[in-house]
């Protein structure tokens, strides 16, 4: 554990100090999350992590993953906070406030678990200094044990070994992508398909773009691909009213865009 290390310090216009303190202040409502420039915090953190990496500190990964969780939550929190709330008048406002508190609760919960994890580690370490007496049974007692009942033929025994040695199928994970592996759908591929189609005919509705999708997975992949295309300024959207058809316009010139531009995270097959 790295309790004694100096840790990451934040330097902002309105706050300078350890990251944990920043969280504490937000927790106690002494600092408004909207006044925290998360981009600045992130920049500083990246600098900090790079420095650690250069020093060859092995806990840089731990700290980086912790930061990501916290920063993501802060971002959620800030988004919730920035949405117009004003007077609590209707259910939507209340839902918004609840969302805000839930986000915050999530953050605090994470910090709490992190803290007790440290305590557990310390206890496990201290307890590890005691060794239980667990010695082999004295021979005269072992000899008293009832004769083993053994009914397995070598064949049955081999079947047992087969079952025990067979790799266990991985359970669906938190992100729930494992069950999607049946059919390989690539966001990149789908982007290419839609790119070609849109270059021939634009605009097209999202409904039309997914009309030939043979699985939900393809729909998801195309949706993600559209977001990517939008980010690359290859397409634009318009929607006349909420829940109306989404029209997708091709805005890149022919040949200006290629699916190779897609960010790395989507190169993997879903």
């Amino acid at each position, binding site marked *: 554990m790295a309790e004694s290390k100096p840790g990451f310090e934040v330097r902002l216009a309105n706050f300078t100090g350890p990251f944990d303190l920043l969280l*504490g202040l937000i927790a106690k409502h002494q600092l408004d999350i909207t006044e925290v420039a998360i981009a600045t915090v992130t920049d500083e953190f990246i600098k900090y992590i790079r420095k650690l990496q250069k020093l060859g500190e092995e806990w840089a990964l731990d700290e980086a993953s912790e930061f990501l969780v916290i920063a*993501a939550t802060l971002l959620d929190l800030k988004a919730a906070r920035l949405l117009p709330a004003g007077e609590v008048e209707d259910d939507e406002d209340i839902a918004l406030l609840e969302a805000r508190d839930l986000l915050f609760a999530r953050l*605090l919960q994470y910090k709490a*678990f992190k803290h*007790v*994890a440290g305590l*557990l580690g310390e*206890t496990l370490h201290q307890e590890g200094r*005691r060794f239980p007496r667990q010695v082999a049974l004295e021979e005269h007692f072992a000899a008293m044990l009832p004769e083993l009942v053994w009914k397995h033929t070598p064949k049955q025994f081999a079947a047992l070994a087969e079952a025990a040695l067979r790799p266990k199928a991985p359970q669906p994970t*938190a992100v729930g992508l494992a069950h999607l592996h049946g059919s390989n759908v690539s966001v990149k591929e789908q982007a290419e398909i839609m790119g070609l189609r849109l270059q021939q005919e634009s605009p097209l509705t999202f409904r039309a773009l997914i009309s030939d999708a043979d699985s939900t997975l393809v729909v998801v992949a195309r949706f993600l691909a559209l977001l990517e295309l939008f980010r690359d300024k290859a397409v634009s959207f318009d929607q006349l009213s909420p829940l109306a058809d989404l029209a997708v316009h091709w805005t890149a010139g022919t040949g200006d865009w290629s699916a190779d531009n897609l960010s790395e995270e989507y190169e993997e097959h879903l």
Partner: protein
Amino acid sequence: MNGQLPDGAMDVHSLPGGAKAALEAVLMVLDQPATEEELAAGLDLTVDAVRALLAELEREYSGYTVKAPDVETASVAGFGSTPRGFELRNIAGGWRIYSRADFADIVGKYVLEGQTARLTQAALETLAVIAYRQPVSRARVSAIRGVNVDSVVRTLAQRGLIEDAGTDPESGAILYRTTSYFLERMGISSVADLPHLSPHLPGLEGIAEFYDADRM
């Protein structure tokens, strides 16, 4: 009443050292913690008598000379004022003899396996979430920790600290709980003895219900 009958007719009080020494003899062959009930049944004593003897031994090993007037013992000579090299502890609901922590560095040279490998921060955090939220699915642990915990959960299971606790009736996800080996390693009797989580939740006063309500 000296044993014609093969079992049960043994009077532990008639032997040198009496019931206390008999209890000690049994403690010597345990390879896992034994409950007061198991010990009482094996020794043909009442649970209360066993409990009193265990308390007496515990104090003796720690270096207190004891007189336990309410316990009938052949001789309450007790130990001297020096702690022994071992101690008797009630952990995970059972009693067992341990080497005293003071001698860890020396004993560690003789005990080759186990104990040594420390858990990483990621493993500790995952273990903490499972300990406090059990039975819990990996998905929920992941949601709290913000990262995928699959491989960490696997390792914790391999180390015997957590185990499968059936499946969630709704989602069908495997649920996990901590094991009695976890309690042993923590030196506590039950998960109720874990430190309370609430003091570690700063500024939580108003939103405590979220944790209990278990909504995230």
